[in-house]
């Protein structure tokens, strides 16, 4: 977690008025970049991460020592080729990888902020990241890209800054968090808050950590990222390191063991309070409500080209919700492409090796980059 991460960060001195009414200033935004910014500054791509992601999109994540979360998409000779593009990714505010969040130390008390941290929204996250773009002196991004909560940030970014990106690619996301989405997030939050070590969010004061609750939250969420077919094919009723049932509550089944493992590795890298704050931000996301019920109005001012992608087996952010974004864009004659990619890997498809997704995404980005450069927009 946050403690001693040696990460690139900037301190935003401009006050940022949050949706909850509070104002923050002199707060850190941690980020990472890949590739080189060209002299015209026309090759920058801002990637937004999802709920449990971070700024380490590609290469080795220095905290987990694993590959960056979007290594299939971003890197040398990958669909977003860092030989060609300058890729920027920031840790969202509310996060726990160096940006201002509940695990940030309050300098006056020397303690973590905990649940004294203000409620933040997708809008606040995007506004904070815009400060980073200003700091990097990039007048106009070539593209903003992200999946899941990252896709929500893409939509919010274009709505807030209609002339700051030439291309926007929201993937496997929604313009408004559904009851089902909120329900699953609430389940995760309740698991954390039910852990006696949560201590109303001030666990670090007692050198505690609500590991159990956070692990359960992660296990439940992880199921929502997969598909029934994917689970059945990968695990079925296969037993874990045993030939027969043990008639007890150990992890007899591989799927149980898998989920327990996912839960246990997650608590080593993620802060429980960040999980509460970020899921809340997702639940509060309703872009059409921000525009008085008319989603099209969010994009009225923009000339940004859109490419919306969904996956057949994603039931968390299903194609129908992605299509609503397309419909809103079409109804104002915006420039939008859309495809639903065939995959049985569920919502997680956008993070995984799904060849038709990777090819379509890469080809589209590269040919659009070529066309836009030829036209010199």
């Amino acid at each position, binding site marked *: 977690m946050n403690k001693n991460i040696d990460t690139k960060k900037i301190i935003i001195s401009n006050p940022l008025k949050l949706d909850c009414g509070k104002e923050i200033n002199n707060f850190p935004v941690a980020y990472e970049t890949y590739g080189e910014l060209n002299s015209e500054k026309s090759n920058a791509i801002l990637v937004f991460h999802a709920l449990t992601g971070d700024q380490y999109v590609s290469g080795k994540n220095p905290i987990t020592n694993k590959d960056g979360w979007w290594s299939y998409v971003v890197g040398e000779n990958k669909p977003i080729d860092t030989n060609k593009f300058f890729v920027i990714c920031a840790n969202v505010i509310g996060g726990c990888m160096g940006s201002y969040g509940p695990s940030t130390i309050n300098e006056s008390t020397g303690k973590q902020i905990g649940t004294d941290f203000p409620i933040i929204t997708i809008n606040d996250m995007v506004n904070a990241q815009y400060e980073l773009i200003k700091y990097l002196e990039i007048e106009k991004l070539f593209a903003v890209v992200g999946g899941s909560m990252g896709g929500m940030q893409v939509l919010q970014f274009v709505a807030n800054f209609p002339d700051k990106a030439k291309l926007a690619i929201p993937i496997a996301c929604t313009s408004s968090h559904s009851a089902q989405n909120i329900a699953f997030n609430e389940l995760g939050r309740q698991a954390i808050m039910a852990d006696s070590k949560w201590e109303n969010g001030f666990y670090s004061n007692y050198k505690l950590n609500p590991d159990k609750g956070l692990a359960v939250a992660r296990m439940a969420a992880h199921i929502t990222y997969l598909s029934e077919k994917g689970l059945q094919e990968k695990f079925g009723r296969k037993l874990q390191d045993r030939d027969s049932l043990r008639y007890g509550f150990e992890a007899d089944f591989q799927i149980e063991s898998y989920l327990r493992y996912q839960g246990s590795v997650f608590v080593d890298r993620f802060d429980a309070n960040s999980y509460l704050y970020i899921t809340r931000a997702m639940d509060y996301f309703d872009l059409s409500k921000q525009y008085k019920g008319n989603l099209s109005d969010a994009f009225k001012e923009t000339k940004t*080209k859109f*490419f919306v992608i969904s996956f057949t087996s994603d039931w968390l952010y299903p194609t129908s919700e992605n299509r609503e974004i*397309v*419909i809103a864009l*079409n*109804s*104002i*004659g915006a*420039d*939008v*492409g*859309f*495809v*639903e*990619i*065939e995959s049985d890997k569920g919502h997680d498809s956008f993070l995984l090796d799904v060849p*038709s997704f990777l*090819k*379509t995404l890469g*080809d*589209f980005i*590269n*040919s*659009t980059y*070529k*066309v836009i450069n030829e*036209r010199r927009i």
Partner: protein
Amino acid sequence: MKEEFNIISNLIEENTRVLDVGCGNGDLMKFLQENKTKDIRGLEISKEKVQNCLSKGLTVIEGNAESDLKQFPKSSFDYVILSQTLQAFLNPELVINELLKVGKKVIVTIPNFGYWRVRLQLLFKGTMPVTENLPHEWYNTPNLHMCTIKDFYNFCSSKNIKIFKSIALKKSRISEINKSNLNYKNLDSHLGIFLIES
């Protein structure tokens, strides 16, 4: 194919907004993009073809013309093109109406079932026609509602749809269709191209 593309391209004014419905692999879109206008979109039902188009950088939406044309506002395109696809719809009349709503002008091209080669197959062989332009067998054809140039011509007049231009194509020979030569063109052309407006 090339001839059809040229004719369509000639019907379109430069730098206008175009939607290609049933754009397939995007060959016509690409052709128009190079020759006429950059402002061109596609709608296509096949995932694989949509991915091919997107890979070429073409802005295409995966969708079904029968249900998804509704989402475009009225007259949001200068031209809407439906190239050799009308016969594949469950409800061609509905699709034509949707096209006329979305486009200020509509270009429809029709593989002519009245072409003499087609007629001869049914007349002499007694089997459903299979030609270069209509390569499917009766049991696997996507074509649900075949029509002739004359059928479409009559359809337009009965529905008060204005025909601005109607062109007949035989091999690479191009000619205009009018009321007086309709029967002949209906026999002698493999493709009809219509520029219409509601």
